């Protein structure tokens, strides 16, 4: 379960977000660009700091302004798929996929390796292991980014415009794959999009409401 209740002052407006996502559900944040969608994801991931409020993940606060809690991104167990995928260009596909296992030992590492092998096979990119990101197509990059985020078995998965850079046929197939993620991994998934066609993937959809200098994301 992910519970978000935050406020952040941005240069043009004040962003408010208040929602919960139970494990196994997919929340879509849909809206045009410049309404704080990515900011919300980055606050959850620990890449930006909200000015007030609290974020709970799995029943524990990962951010809580009043109590001075702000877990660093590295310790939040958040899986993040960036808009442009942000694959490590100096590492091979396999190097990218295993990056999250660095620093893990023993059984955790073994389980991660097994998961990496399975996911590579399942998403049909096992043969691309030794390629570099520059040598991949858009759809292949997207899958590597998704696998890289899932290998650590995150407590929540955040997808920032995961389909924006892809052509239409591919989009339909990946949409199906994304739809199955929340139930299969039994984690909350939050997907951000500017395009209304991703909304039908969702268990729930939020749209921004603007009033004065405040943009609110609430059910």
């Amino acid at each position, binding site marked *: 379960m992910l519970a978000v209740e935050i406020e952040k002052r941005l240069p043009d407006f004040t962003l408010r977000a208040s929602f919960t996502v139970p494990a196994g559900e997919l929340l879509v944040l849909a809206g045009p660009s410049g309404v704080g969608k990515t900011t919300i994801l980055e606050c959850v991931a620990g890449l930006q700091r909200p000015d007030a409020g609290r974020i709970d993940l799995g029943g524990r606060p990962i951010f809580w302004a009043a109590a001075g809690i702000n877990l660093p991104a590295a310790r939040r167990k958040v899986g*993040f798929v960036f808009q442009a995928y942000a694959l490590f260009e100096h590492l091979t596909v396999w190097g990218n996929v295993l990056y999250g296992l660095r620093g893990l030992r023993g059984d955790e590492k073994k389980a991660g390796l097994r998961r990496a092998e399975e996911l590579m096979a399942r998403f049909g990119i096992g043969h691309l292991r030794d390629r570099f990101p520059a040598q991949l197509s858009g759809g292949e990059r997207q899958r590597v980014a998704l696998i890289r985020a899932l290998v650590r078995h995150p407590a929540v998965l955040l997808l920032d415009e995961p389909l924006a850079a892809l052509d239409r046929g591919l989009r339909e197939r990946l949409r199906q794959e994304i739809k199955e993620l929340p139930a299969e991994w039994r984690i909350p998934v939050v997907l951000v999009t500017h395009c209304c066609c991703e909304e039908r993937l969702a268990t729930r959809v939020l749209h921004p409401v603007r009033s004065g200098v405040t943009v609110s994301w609430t059910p």
Partner: protein
Amino acid sequence: MPEEALFALLLSLRVALLATAVAAVSGVACARLLARARFPGKEAVEAALLLPLVLPPTVVGFGLLLLLGRNGPVGRLVPGGLLFTWWAAVIAAAVAAFPLVYQNARAAFAQVDPDQENAARTLGAGEVRVFFTVTLPLAWPGILAGIVLAFARALGEFGATLMVAGNIPGKTQTVPMAIYFAVEAGDYRTALPLVVIVLAWSFGVIFGLHRWSRRHIARYAGQRRG
């Protein structure tokens, strides 16, 4: 080749390598720290770090003379003093080479995609690991270019080195000194082999690095963003 010329050659190599190492580590560290830090007077500090690049070598040499002299803030820490030892040559070369690493590293770090660093953070990497496994490798082609230039600059350092290390054959005489004073004395037979060796060596380094970078870096450096 006379024994002193051979000594000059080996000394030059040692001085340039040490100076490049010092300039590389401090240049990369300064570039990284200043890219992040915010404090009053930052721009003045940044300008000061580039000074050795624009100042006449004799001005740098004069500054180092004061710094390393028997009563200078650095010189007094070393018993016997630093002036007219080969360590003074290392320091002069490192100071001259530093801005080249710093400037290139600064530009290279600015090019690194912050999303890739953030991706590493969400994958459990602390700041030290992010730096050594993502930031540094991505910035490496640019930093390496700076290091090559720094090495060339260190190898050729003349003005400031002459002022603080002097021209003592068999002790502080580097190749540029040996060539200059040999030519001045009309001793072309000493100067010419040194010139040829430096030429071949410099060409080899640049050529080799170009080949290496084409093979090992081009495959990912061509495409910066997805």
